[in-house]
């Protein structure tokens, strides 16, 4: 049989991630005209961390405290029955809720779009935002649904055989985005 060897190389390092998030924070401020009624909702686990980082940057730039929270989408997935039931992540909404606000969903990797679809369903059950936007650190393509991101850290052309893994300081002890190729020899 063939030997499978994993080749991983970093497509984004710490400083690249830092710069990408800084740019996204500026773009959110620009697009939403000062982020007055913006709520940042991260999709656990790493999306929630990224949402907090974006909120910190917006606070630095404009001195504005943007409400930030997390939205777990596990119970809304369309592939629940393909795998054993999985542990739930945390949903934490800002105290004032999301009604009438512009919600920016934050995730680490945008791929098939199914996670975002589930997030839109989940949002529907927690309130009625004025608008929903999407920010992602990496867009790796291969969409299976009509979904696109409003803010992208890096567009990363990939093949379906590859894996994209995001590491963040707060969770993994370092910042990096790895592209992992599974090569059969």
């Amino acid at each position, binding site marked *: 049989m063939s030997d499978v060897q994993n080749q991983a190389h970093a497509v984004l390092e710490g400083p690249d991630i830092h710069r990408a998030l800084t740019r996204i924070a500026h773009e959110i401020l620009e697009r939403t005209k000062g982020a007055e009624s913006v709520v940042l909702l991260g999709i656990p686990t790493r999306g929630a961390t990224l949402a907090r980082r974006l909120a910190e940057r917006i606070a630095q730039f404009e001195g504005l405290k943007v409400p930030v929270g997390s939205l777990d989408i596990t*119970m809304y997935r369309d592939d629940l*029955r*393909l795998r*054993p*039931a999985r*542990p*739930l992540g*945390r949903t934490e909404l800002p105290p004032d809720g999301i009604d009438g606000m512009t919600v920016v969903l934050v995730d680490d990797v945008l791929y098939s779009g199914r996670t975002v679809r589930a997030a839109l369903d989940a949002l529907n*059950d*927690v309130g009625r935002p004025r608008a929903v936007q999407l920010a992602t650190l990496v867009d790796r393509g291969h969409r299976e649904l009509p979904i696109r991101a409003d803010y992208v850290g890096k567009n990363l052309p990939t093949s379906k055989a590859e894996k994209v893994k995001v590491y963040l300081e707060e969770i993994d002890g370092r910042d990096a985005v790895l592209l992992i190729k599974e090569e059969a020899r």
Partner: protein
Amino acid sequence: MRHLISAGELSRDDALLILDTAEELARVSDRSIKKLPTLRGRTVVNLFFEDSTRTRISFEAAAKRLSADVINFSAKGSSVSKGESLKDTALTLEAMGADAVVIRHGASGAPHRLATWVHGSVVNAGDGTHEHPTQALLDAYSMRRRLGRLEGLKVAVVGDVLHSRVARSNVLLLHTLGAEVTLVAPPTLLPVSVETWPCQVSYDLDAVLPKADVVMMLRVQLERMNASYFPSAREYSRRYGLDRDRFAKLHDDAIVMHPGPMNRGMEISAEVADSPRSTIVEQVGNGVTVRMAVLYLLLGGSEPAIGGGA
């Protein structure tokens, strides 16, 4: 394990997964839309051969909040009163496509038998004097919410242990989760094999109370008593009832629990039952959350996420 039949068969990791899942699901109960789409298209049958209000309604609410279809079946007014056997009832439910059967039965071991006949998951909602695992889970969950931990917690379970499936399930689960349980009852209301249970036994409530973090009062199950286990209700209440004076012996953070339904004035005085340190009402709310967690982990995926075997 496709089934939840005994609290004793849950590993520590399984039990904690259920409690942690319930913790996240509790947040759903706070929002305006309490429903989740997760079990859409799945059917849960509540098969109740014994009277029950809170457990049946609790399971029904839990299944409905996860969007499952719920069929309620109570033995009264059903073909069981025409003499149908448990097995035939089970096969009928199977033919109707039940994904899970929640069973309450007067005979210990009925859920275990049922599990050998149906393909779906079986959840024990109380069988005779044997077990009531979801009650133990919701009790553990309530303790952890109030006191912040389970490890090392001193729990006194007081009263009719002999007829209590709640006591047995609690002893097994709390032992798994690292709490120390002391059973307190008159000798006539303790089962013969109690020395093999992983817990302490005492006949003296007043000696146990000052050290307890949790006091769980059990209902005196008069309907199961076919002999005289104590001289009079009044004497029982004097020695084993939790009244104001005994309540004062507890330390300030200790909580009082009761699985319900209560006999006020018998095992617990009204004043104690209604005190802010009593969790009796919140146990009911927690019951729905914990049962949602159990149903989600058994039915939510391609295969159950808790347990093994069976």
